[in-house]
C-alpha cells in the first residue's frame, strides 16, 4: 500500500518536472516590426543618468540619449523600469529590446550580449566621510576595512578581484550606502565618479572623493546576440548623435559647469508628486492583493476538498493537487515570481497576480482541508438520512461548518499575502515599494519613505488582524451560536 503511494508520488514528481522543463521554452526574441516601440530598460534609480523628475516622469542623461537614438532610427521609445540585478536576464528573456541605463562594458557581460560603441566613459572612485576616522586617502589603504558598493555593479567585482583583503559590503542602492556611511558603519564606498559626486551634492552629505580613479570604464548599450540589426541601427544613431553635436548638448545639460539636473539646488520631487506616486503604487499593491486573493480563494475550495477526502473520480486528482500545493509551499515566492516572469514569459502584472494567486491557493487549500476535516462524519450521515445529496450536503452542512473553523487561519493568509505583494517590486511591477525606491533615489530619505510605506501596509493589515482575532474569540466562546 505504502509502496504503491510512494511509487505514484514519485511518478507524479517526474511528470511535473517534465512539464516544467517543457514549459521553460527559451524566450527567443521575435523579430520586432519596426513600427513597434523600442523597449528600453533602465532602473529609474540612477540619477542623474536616469531617475524620476519632479513631475514623476523618467528623465536623465540615459533617457535623453535613448530618445535621441529613437528619433534617429525612427521608433518610439517605451521605457521599462526594472531592477538592476535582474536587468540582463530580462533582456535575454525578451522582456525588452535593449538597456540604456549606464551599463559598463565588461568581458563577462559581452559573452552574453553584444554592446554598442561606448556612449560615454566614466570611472570608479572611492568616496569617504569627510571626518575620515580611518585616515584613508586611497583604495590601497583600505585593507581589512569595510567598503560599500551597489549589488550587481561592476565596482563590486572589481574590488573582490583586485582588493581581496577589503571587506566589500554590497547594498541595493546608493541610498542605503549613504545611510551606512553617514552612520560610519563603513569606511567608504566605490561608485561612478560622476554619479557619486552628483548624488552626494543632491543628498547634501559630507562625503568626499579620495585618491585617483580606480579605473575607467566604457559605458555601452547592450542588445541580444541575435539582434544584429538593432545593434547596427544603434551604432549608426550614436555616430550621428556624436557628430551632429546632440551628445555634447545632452552632456552639457547634465554635467556642464553651469548645469544642474533639476533647476537649482536640492529641488527634487514635489510633495504632490511623491504623494501621487505612493498612492498610485499602493493602489496597485491593493489591486494585486485583492485579485490574487480572489483567485486563490476560488481555487482553494476545490483543492481543499480534493485534499481532504478524495472520492470517486476525484481520486486521480489527489496526487497532482498534493504535489502542486507542496511544491508551492516548499519553494520561495520570490523564485516563483522570477520563474513566472522570465521562465514563462508572462507580463509583470500577470506574473505577480498569477504567482501570488496560486500561492494563496496553496496555503488556503491546506486551511480549508483542515476545516473540512474538523467536520464530524456524523453530520454527513445526518444529511444523508434527510435525503440530501452530496452537493446539498456539502453546500448546506459541511461547508458552512468548515468555513467557520477556517476563517481565522484564512485571515492570517490574507495578511501574509498582502505583505507578500512587497516582493513583486523585483519583477518591475510599479507597486508601492518600487515607487518608494524611485522616490528615495532622488530624495535620499529612505527612513522617512520606507516608514511611510510600512505604515500604509499596517493600516490595511491591522484591521484584518483584529478582525481575525475577534472572530477567533467569538468562535471559541460561542461555538456555532450564530448562523
Amino acid at each position, binding site marked *: 500500500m505504502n509502496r504503491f503511494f510512494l511509487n505514484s508520488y514519485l511518478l507524479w514528481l517526474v511528470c511535473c518536472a517534465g512539464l516544467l522543463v517543457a514549459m521553460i521554452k527559451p524566450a527567443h526574441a521575435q523579430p520586432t516590426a519596426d513600427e513597434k516601440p523600442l523597449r528600453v530598460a533602465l532602473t529609474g534609480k540612477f540619477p542623474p543618468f536616469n531617475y524620476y523628475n519632479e513631475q514623476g516622469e523618467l528623465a536623465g542623461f540615459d533617457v535623453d540619449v535613448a530618445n535621441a537614438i529613437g528619433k534617429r532610427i525612427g521608433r518610439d521609445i517605451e521605457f521599462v523600469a526594472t531592477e538592476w540585478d535582474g536587468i540582463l536576464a530580462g533582456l535575454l528573456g525578451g522582456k525588452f529590446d535593449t538597456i540604456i541605463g549606464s551599463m559598463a562594458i565588461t568581458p563577462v557581460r559581452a559573452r552574453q550580449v553584444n554592446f554598442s560603441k561606448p556612449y560615454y566613459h566614466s570611472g570608479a572612485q572611492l568616496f569617504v566621510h569627510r571626518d575620515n576616522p580611518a585616515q584613508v586617502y586611497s583604495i590601497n589603504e583600505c585593507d581589512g576595512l569595510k567598503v560599500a558598493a551597489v549589488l550587481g555593479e561592476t565596482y563590486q567585482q572589481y574590488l573582490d578581484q583586485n582588493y581581496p583583503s577589503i571587506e566589500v559590503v554590497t547594498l541595493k542602492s546608493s541610498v542605503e550606502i549613504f545611510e551606512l556611511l553617514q552612520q560610519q558603519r563603513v569606511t567608504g564606498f566605490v561608485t561612478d565618479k560622476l554619479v557619486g559626486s552628483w548624488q552626494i551634492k543632491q543628498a547634501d552629505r559630507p562625503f568626499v572623493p579620495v585618491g585617483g580613479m580606480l579605473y575607467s570604464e566604457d559605458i555601452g548599450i547592450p542588445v541580444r546576440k541575435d539582434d544584429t540589426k538593432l545593434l547596427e541601427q544603434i551604432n549608426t544613431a550614436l555616430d550621428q548623435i556624436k557628430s551632429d553635436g546632440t551628445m555634447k548638448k545632452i552632456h552639457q545639460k547634465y554635467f556642464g559647469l553651469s548645469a544642474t539636473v533639476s533647476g537649482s539646488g536640492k529641488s527634487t520631487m514635489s510633495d504632490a508628486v511623491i504623494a501621487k506616486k505612493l498612492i498610485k503604487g499602493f493602489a496597485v499593491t491593493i489591486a494585486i492583493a485583492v485579485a490574487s486573493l480572489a483567485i486563490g480563494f476560488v481555487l482553494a475550495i476545490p483543492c481543499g476538498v480534493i485534499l481532504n477526502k478524495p472520492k470517486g473520480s476525484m481520486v486521480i486528482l489527489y496526487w497532482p493537487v498534493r504535489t502542486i500545493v507542496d511544491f508551492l509551499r516548499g519553494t520561495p515566492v520570490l523564485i516563483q515570481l522570477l520563474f513566472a516572469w522570465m521562465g514563462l514569459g508572462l507580463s509583470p502584472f500577470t506574473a505577480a497576480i498569477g504567482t501570488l494567486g496560486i500561492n494563496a491557493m496553496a496555503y488556503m487549500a491546506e486551511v480549508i482541508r483542515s476545516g473540512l476535516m474538523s467536520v464530524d462524519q456524523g453530520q454527513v450521515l445526518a444529511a444523508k438520512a434527510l435525503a440530501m445529496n452530496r452537493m446539498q450536503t456539502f453546500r448546506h452542512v459541511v461547508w458552512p461548518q468548515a468555513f467557520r473553523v477556517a476563517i481565522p487561519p484564512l485571515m492570517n493568509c490574507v495578511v501574509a499575502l498582502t505583505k507578500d505583494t512587497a516582493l513583486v517590486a523585483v519583477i518591475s511591477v510599479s507597486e508601492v515599494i518600487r515607487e518608494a525606491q524611485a522616490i528615495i533615489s532622488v530624495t535620499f530619505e529612505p527612513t522617512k519613505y520606507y516608514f511611510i510605506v510600512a505604515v500604509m501596509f499596517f493600516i490595511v493589515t491591522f484591521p484584518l488582524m483584529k478582525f481575525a482575532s475577534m472572530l477567533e474569540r467569538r468562535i471559541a466562546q460561542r*461555538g456555532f451560536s450564530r*448562523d
Partner: protein
Amino acid sequence: MIEIRDLIYTYPNADEPALKQLSVQFPRENVFAVLGQSGSGKTTLLNCIARFLTPTSGSIHIDDRNIADMTELEFRHTLGVVFQRLNLFPHLSVLRNLTLAPEKVFGTTLSDARKQAREMLDRLGIGDLADRYPAQISGGQAQRVAIARGLMLQPSYMLLDEPTSALDAQTTQDFAAWLTELSSETSFIIVTHDLPFAEMVASHGVYLSQGEIQATGNVADILQQVQQPTS
C-alpha cells in the same frame, strides 16, 4: 413490517462477518426494540437498514418492498433515523435544522416549511426551542429536536439509535413517557442496550448477540431469558 432475509455483513478487511445470515421480522408496532450488548451487531444492523451500509449478501424489505430498489427520496420518506450522537447541525437554529431538508430536498417553500416545523415543535412540546442553537439546549431537548427533524419527512418508521445514552435516569423516564405518546402516530424501532428503558417503552423486540439473533418476542420474556446465566 420490516423483514430481514439472510443478511450477512462483513466489514472490509475483517475476517468474520459482523452479521451472520440474519433472518428476522420486525412487526409494525408502536415501539419495537432491537436489544443487545456493545459489539453484538446492533449498530451494523441499523446501518444496513438505514442504507448507510450495503449488505454483503441478503436483503431488507420494508412493507414488502426491497429497500435496495427504492429511490433515495422514497426510502427516506419510508424510514427516518435518529443517531446516537443526534448529529444536529450546530451552525443552524433548531427551526432551520427542521426546515433544511424539506426546503432544499423536497422543494417545500421556506414559509411552508417553517410553518410545518413550528407545528411539529409545538406538537412535540418543544415549540420554545425554535430559535435556539443546538449548543444552547439540553441533551433531553436535543434528543426531541432530532426526532422532530426526522419526523418532518413523515416516515412510516423511525429508527432511534441508543436514544438514552446521553440521558440521566429522570430524563430517561420523561423521554419514555413522551415517546410512548408519540408512538401512536409513527412506528419507532429503538436500538438499545438499555434494557430497563426498552421494557418501559416496547412490548416486543429481538435480542442480538455476536451477530446472531438470540431471542425474539415479548421484551419482558427476552429480558428474563438473557439475564439468566447461560447453563
